[in-house]
């Protein structure tokens, strides 16, 4: 059976793409953010996962308000990036893993998650930039196959943290029951606290973010006590993207199954508090 080797949760913002395209990684503004990824890159080089399940939220590249799925799972042979409106250079397409896609779809629907399935799917900065941060030297050939899992954070009502936690648990169980010898890493991207819109734009909540990151080590269901509105009050309108972290961490299993290997937290990149955590699954 397939095995989850670990999980990585990280922030994403379009400006990272601009920084990468401009080669600004070692500039004072960006260095504390980019340097945080070195231990994770090293871990990936050692562990060499075969497949990445990437839990992210689309920002209006693949989905518009005409059709807005709460949970969408990619089932495509490959996933392309495209212009999101700012003309930032796009990244090479990502190979899919249709066997895992359909296994996930079967298992998740059986567990009462009513999914949207996508045999064509563009992936935006929330998917592509974390991949580039994790494998900066991949060039045209990404070293992993991928399965995108997209959670709606565009249009309310959004799924609750509790629901996203359960989705993550179901993803973890599905991977564990996949008849394959693949080694799978689960990636969650979004957050942490930030708010782009309204008079409260620029809101950041460092103490909550740090407590949340701590909870992923000691009590991964901690955030499920909060409603979506409470989480937005605590973390900002786009801080709610921490739902991806909740789901990804839940996929890895309980406190006893996982050890934290690395964490980084830096304010700000663009308007965002940037977090990064690496978890390894124990054998």
């Amino acid at each position: 059976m397939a095995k989850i080797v670990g999980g990585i949760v990280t922030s994403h913002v379009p400006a990272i793409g601009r920084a990468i395209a401009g080669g600004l990684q070692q500039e004072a503004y960006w260095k504390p953010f980019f340097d945080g990824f070195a231990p994770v890159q090293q871990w990936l080089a050692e562990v060499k996962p075969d497949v990445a399940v990437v839990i992210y939220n689309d920002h209006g590249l693949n989905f518009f308000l005409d059709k807005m799925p709460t949970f969408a799972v990619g089932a495509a042979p490959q996933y392309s990036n495209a212009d999101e409106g700012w003309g930032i250079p796009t990244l090479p397409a990502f190979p899919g893993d249709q066997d895992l896609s359909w296994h996930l779809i079967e298992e998740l629907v059986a567990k009462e998650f009513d999914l949207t399935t996508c045999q064509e799917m563009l992936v935006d900065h929330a998917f592509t930039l974390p991949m580039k941060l994790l494998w900066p030297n991949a060039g045209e050939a990404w070293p992993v196959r991928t399965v995108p899992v997209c959670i709606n954070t565009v249009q309310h009502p959004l799924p609750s943290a509790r629901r996203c936690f359960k989705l993550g648990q179901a993803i973890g169980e599905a991977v564990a029951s996949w008849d394959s010898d693949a080694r799978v890493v689960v990636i969650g991207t979004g957050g942490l606290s930030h708010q782009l819109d309204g008079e409260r734009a620029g809101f950041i909540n460092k103490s909550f973010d740090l407590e949340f990151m701590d909870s992923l080590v000691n009590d991964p269901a901690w955030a499920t006590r909060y409603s979506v509105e409470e989480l937005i009050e605590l973390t900002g309108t786009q801080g709610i993207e921490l739902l991806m972290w909740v789901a990804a961490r839940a996929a890895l299993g309980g406190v006893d199954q996982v050890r934290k290997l690395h964490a980084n937290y830096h304010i700000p990149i663009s308007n965002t508090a940037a977090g990064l955590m690496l978890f390894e699954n124990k054998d």
Partner: protein
Amino acid sequence: MATAKVRRVIPGTPLFDGDAARKGYALNKMCYSFNSADNRAEFTRDEAAYCRKYGLDPQQLAAVEKRNVLDLIAAGGNAYYLAKFAGIFGLDMQDIGAQQTGMSKEAFKARLIEAGK
């Protein structure tokens, strides 16, 4: 005609719900079209004609004309789509944040850095 569930009100924090999604559909659809460089160029060439094509209402037209983010949100705009609109004018997230909070861009950026201390 508000049909979305009444939500917790968080000061200065718009929640894009069913009411906003209904009200803002034409505006957001136009902003979504700006994923394409050709469409951005077309908008820049003849803004009025482009807005007409998407059927913006008078409130949305006025907000677009003013490039005012709070007005665009009040007209049903969603932050993720509006970011594409802002990009046409070379505005980044700090420009947008500064405009909405009435701060200078430098002051807005300084406040972000302060939040990390």
